[in-house]
């Protein structure tokens, strides 16, 4: 337990530090009342993330609680899935920067299955989710195959495949062959609307957009964690990530583990697209600009590449980002939540760099007094 806490601590501290820095940034860029404004803005963000409790206690209907919570949960679900996608690839030693492209493909597949196939709800939702997962997995599979058979570095291929996906889906399929039909003259963007049977059910009815996607995402986090920690294939996957030569020597099918992990990563990112389309949008929108796939990288790193850490980080940043919109009421720019997330990531990175510097300095030194703990106040130049 102590070990686990120590692992989580840098992330928690980084997030807190970034919150403080951003608070100061708001406060110091105001002419007057900076600190009051910054605090008010943070409170707005909080109420936008966990529900507007003061208004509720003041007698407003329960919707002022459920709506913000629903928004936060929706964003958290998306961030969890893309974060898991990146984390799973990390575990096998690959860097999946292509979650965005996989998500686009997944979203498109979900939209197509949702609108072009007619099934009862009990089958339709799983079919659409499965379609999205397969599409995402296939897209990631391209990068995996290039890596395994041609030695193309997955960072390069996944970045490039992101753009291919964007142009393919946003600039061709969605405005071309798969475009929804409207009356002449009406501008409709995106694909046809999905059938009601494919929409993820709303868990709280009309008063919130909270839908089945959220529990599914949380379930996915737990499942990935169990798989990595408690199964043989999961163990082998981690072994490949820690050192593929050693894994190969131990008789682990390295290529298969890497390929499967990458496919799983793609499937997770694809499901994020499905949750977006089936949960709230109801169609593949004209452009799916939101970079949840890229955010997944940050979420994964802040969550220490641990499935449950990813879920926690996603919950936190889901709430922050859902609430961040409200900061605009106090004239704080709409992208502040991203700033908080970016700074948190930077501070997490600072820890990594710091550790690596320490390790390198210690490495050449001969073993003097075997395993003494490193002095906390390590000398810096």
């Amino acid at each position: 337990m102590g070990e686990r806490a120590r692992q989580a601590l840098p992330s928690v501290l980084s997030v807190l530090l970034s919150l403080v820095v951003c608070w100061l940034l708001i406060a110091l860029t105001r002419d007057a009342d900076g600190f009051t404004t910054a605090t008010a803005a943070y409170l707005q963000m909080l109420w936008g993330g966990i529900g507007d409790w003061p208004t509720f206690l003041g007698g407003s209907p329960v919707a002022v609680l459920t709506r913000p919570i629903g928004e936060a949960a929706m964003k958290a679900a998306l961030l969890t899935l893309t974060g898991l996608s990146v984390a799973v690839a990390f575990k096998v030693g690959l860097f999946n920067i292509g979650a965005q492209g996989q998500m686009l493909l997944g979203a498109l597949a979900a939209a197509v299955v949702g609108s072009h196939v007619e099934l009862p709800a009990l089958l339709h939702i799983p079919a659409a989710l499965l379609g999205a997962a397969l599409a995402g997995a296939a897209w990631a599979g391209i990068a995996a195959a290039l890596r395994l058979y041609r030695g193309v570095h997955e960072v390069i291929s996944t970045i490039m495949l992101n753009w291919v996906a964007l142009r393919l889906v946003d600039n061709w399929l969605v405005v071309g062959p798969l475009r929804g039909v409207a009356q002449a003259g009406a501008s409709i963007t995106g694909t046809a609307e999905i059938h009601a049977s494919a929409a993820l059910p709303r868990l709280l009815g009309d008063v919130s957009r909270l839908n089945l996607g959220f529990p599914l995402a949380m379930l996915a986090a737990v499942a990935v964690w169990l798989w990595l920690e408690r199964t043989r294939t999961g163990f082998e996957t981690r072994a490949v990530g820690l050192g593929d030569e050693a894994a190969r020597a131990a008789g682990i099918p390295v290529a298969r583990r890497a390929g499967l992990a990458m496919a799983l990563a793609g499937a997770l990112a694809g499901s994020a697209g499905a949750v977006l389309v089936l949960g709230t949008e109801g169609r593949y929108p004209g452009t799916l600009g939101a970079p949840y796939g890229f955010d997944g990288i940050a979420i994964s790193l802040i969550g220490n590449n641990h499935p449950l850490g990813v879920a926690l980080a996603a919950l936190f940043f889901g709430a922050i980002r859902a609430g961040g919109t409200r900061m605009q009421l106090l004239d704080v720019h709409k992208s502040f939540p991203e700033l908080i997330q970016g700074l948190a990531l930077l501070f997490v990175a600072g820890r990594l760099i710091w550790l690596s510097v320490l390790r390198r300095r210690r490495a050449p030194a001969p073993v003097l007094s075997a395993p003494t703990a490193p002095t906390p106040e390590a000398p810096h130049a």
Partner: protein
Amino acid sequence: MMLRLQVLALTALLCACSKKQEETPTQGSQAPSTAQQPAKKAVPVGLVIDVGGRGDHSFNDAALRGLELWAAGKRYEGGKYVDAAPDEVRKSLPAHLTTLATSLQALPVQPVVLQSKAQEDYIPNLQLLVDRGAQLTIGNGYMLANAVRTAAQENPQSRFLLIDSQVLDAQGKALKLPNVRTVLFKEHEGSFLVGALAGLVTKTGKVGFVGGIEVPLIQRFEVGYRAGVKTTKPEAAQTLMSVYTGSFNDMAAGKQVAQDLIAKGADVIFHAAGADGIGVIQAVKEARAAGKSVYAIGVDSDQSHVAPDAILTSMLKHSDLAVYQAARDLVDGKFAAEDQLLGLKEHGVGMAEVRVDFPGKAEALQKVEALRQRVVAGEIKVPSVPADLASFQAPAP
């Protein structure tokens, strides 16, 4: 191994981040102060603008002008509202609207503006404005059509204005809601005028068009523009080059496309591409600095101030007027749910003042004005869909 991967991840991510910042330039950074409460009781009017954001010098800024400057008499400056100077409203009016100057009185409304980060923010943003007590909530842009439908159905007691689209049901059929007013514009008519001017101005005989996302709405700009060019310079209509960038918020894409068109010899480029169009204007500006005689035609708002030498004119789309009228009707208690369609005749679209000089300017402007009057009189029917373009006969002078 892990560590190296993570450092790699970070570098890649930093690159991605820095790119993102480039893409959103002119946002007024979050500077001072909380929103000011006007002394008398003002009606809150909400406005949700699409992902193009504030400061696009175009579509979103037009709606913002209608609400903030015209309706509320305020200017958004450095993150807060200040009272606008008395003549500022009049200055913001193009020549063909100056007659309206006296009727544009500041109304007791208080603007509440929310920008959207992504498609899925539209509904929560509209809902938040309703929850904050907005009497009228404006969805600016066809991308908000679905969101306005949902929000209007969930809040039947609240009123909405939807710009640029009708309310569509799941099958894409127009739907009437008792609490939504929609406004559509005849963009083709305004584009027809700037197209006619482009045909008169071009020296290379090649003109270009840059569109954002290829939807019927943006096609109306292109079709009207083509018809205009065909009227004044038929051979240029044959070679007219048209490109769609596929976005409204990617300046780099607009710039790239425009550079391409200029390299192929286009010397007048009309854009209907939101923030991508700012990139188009930049490309034209740079080409002019390099000694080429090239013009850009702006869209939605008068974009002359973006690059005074490079902007020939702008095709104006008066969503500012539509927003103002809706706010006025709200204050007067006359707000009715209806579908409006505004063309040249209704001052819904128009051509901005031509501020650059070129040989034969007076004559060219006369010709365009003559065309305008004939469109208003109904003598010329400007096509609005690509299919009608082939059968469009250029009117005899």
